[in-house]
């Protein structure tokens, strides 16, 4: 089985290769420096392939543990819905929902923490620093 560092070096080499090809869309004088960096990166990846060292075993499942997946989903959903539903509704629902996922019975705690965060961020950013959050459909 191929060592993880070797796999990583191949993936990176492919990405940098695509980037190099993409650079031909631009005049040579403006991409000379990025191309130089890409060549250095390719050499480093080749070196990593040849001398991968010992990173130990990385299991793919370590990236996808349930708490991590739940957190990633909530984070992506928060960012996606933030401009649509607005700051108040999105923040409250995200925090409340997230706490309920981890502590099913902690409804009051979730409600209070969510309310606390909405209030704190509103006072700190909107009232004090005059940063206007998206109001969205639900205000």
């Amino acid at each position: 089985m191929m060592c993880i560092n070797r796999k990583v070096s191949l993936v990176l080499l492919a990405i940098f290769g695509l980037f190099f090809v993409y650079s031909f869309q631009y005049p040579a004088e403006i991409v000379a420096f990025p191309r130089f960096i890409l060549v250095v990166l390719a050499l480093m990846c080749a070196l990593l392939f040849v001398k991968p060292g010992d990173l130990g075993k990385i299991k793919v499942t370590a990236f996808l543990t349930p708490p991590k997946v739940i957190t990633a989903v909530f984070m992506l959903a928060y960012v996606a819905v933030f401009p649509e539903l607005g700051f108040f509704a999105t923040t409250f629902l995200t925090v409340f929902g997230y706490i309920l996922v981890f502590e099913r019975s902690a409804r009051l705690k979730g409600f209070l923490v969510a309310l606390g965060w909405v209030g704190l961020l509103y006072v700190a950013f909107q009232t004090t620093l005059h940063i206007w959050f998206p109001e969205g459909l639900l205000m």
Partner: protein
Amino acid sequence: MEFGFSLAVLKNVFMPFNLLMATFGVVIGIIFGALPGFTAAMGIAILMPITFSMTPEAGLIMMGAIFAGAMWGGSVSAILINTPGTPGAAATVLDGYPMAKQGRAADALRESVVSSFVGGILGVIVLQLFAPPLARVSLMFGPPEYFVLAIFGMTIIASLSEKMIVKGYISGFLGMLIGTMGMDPLLGVPRFTFGITGLIDGVMLVPALIGLFSIPEVMEIIQMHGSREEMIPNLKNIKIGFPTWAHTRRMIPTYLRSSAIGLIVGILPGAGASIASFMAYNEEKRASKTPEKFGTGMIEGVAASEAANNSICAGAFIPMLTLGVPGDSVAAIMMGALMVHGLQPGAELFTTYADVTWTFIMSLYLANVLMLFFGLYCAPWFSWATRTPKHILAISIVLLTTVGAFAVRESMTDVYVMLAFGIIGYLLKSHGFDVVPVVLGLILGPMAEKGLNGTLAISYGQNTAWFILQRPVSLILIGLTVFALVLPYWRARRKDKDPFASHEADIQ
């Protein structure tokens, strides 16, 4: 105003709002430091957008105070629950936790705060003395010197990478590559923007920093969810108070030795607090008459680690303020903050913007005094921070990072940039890459390109390499670059190790 002592500077430092920001910064810093998984870099990155509506002085004072507070805060969880709150407190665990188990938690906390204070103050003195002359050296720099300086910064950063040298280089040059996105400095043509208008001005540094330093930590924190909670010693009725003079006198050599190590390591770009604290700990062990007792609850072990990791704060600011090469991740973030406030590192900081710079430097004394006060009298109150459930911490960071990135320009593009960098940071970290070189590459990349373009322009008709080699400052920097490249291989050879393999063991 050679060493910053002027009435205007002191007036600035002690302005009520600035005092409030310093206090707020120290308290927030201690809380961030005490929370396992939170780091000083993350705290400053998340809270940086708040400073944009403040004066540069107030913003820098707050961020400097967070740094000082967090460096000590890390020892609270290291001593109480055997988990370093920040990487710099990793060596504090070795003797701090055994002391807590022996019922000497108050002694360990007292020693950690006093040695942090001494290390911090000594660091600021050195910063005050050495920054102005070094800034004057930067006046001798032209485009070739800046180009070579950027390359030198990259090599030393990557060569000191904690995991693998080659991976450090990959991270650093990846940051440089990302830094080339946006308007080309030569012809003003958009480059690698993939049709996204928000990228025409290049990658915004602040959202990128927020993403890189926060999202991977969120994932690490949530991974700890449900893990066995450590018993935290009850500190409610414990008064820490000042140490005795006899004890302090006995510890002076330790403070001086460890602070010197922290300062030297801090000045080296990329070395980091964990390396400094382990080096100081090892040195203290070597100097001790009873080295075999280290690891069983020796107060000197706590003092060495903490003095070193706090003196590193000021050390890391020296190359950042004078040459624009950040000493560590926090200095990189502070450099981003300086730029956002319209300040460029270099000689100008000590001439045109001397008031702002000296206010910041002098405020570090205040931050250390505040840290000593809160540490000695309020440490038991901060121990609650270590009890916060992990999922509440995780969602709190998600909120702060999103709202913080949005607050930079009130634009969702910055939130998407933050998220993209968060994903990149997580993928890199989970595959054994360090994210600090990415940040430094982002900063040094444009410096290198601008320097190279300038060199090509002024050396028109001559061999560029020969042109660079003819300049004495460039030549010195090239020499240092070669030294930085050779050093890790020489060290590895000496220790009979493969230079490409992990050298984490070296640190420990």
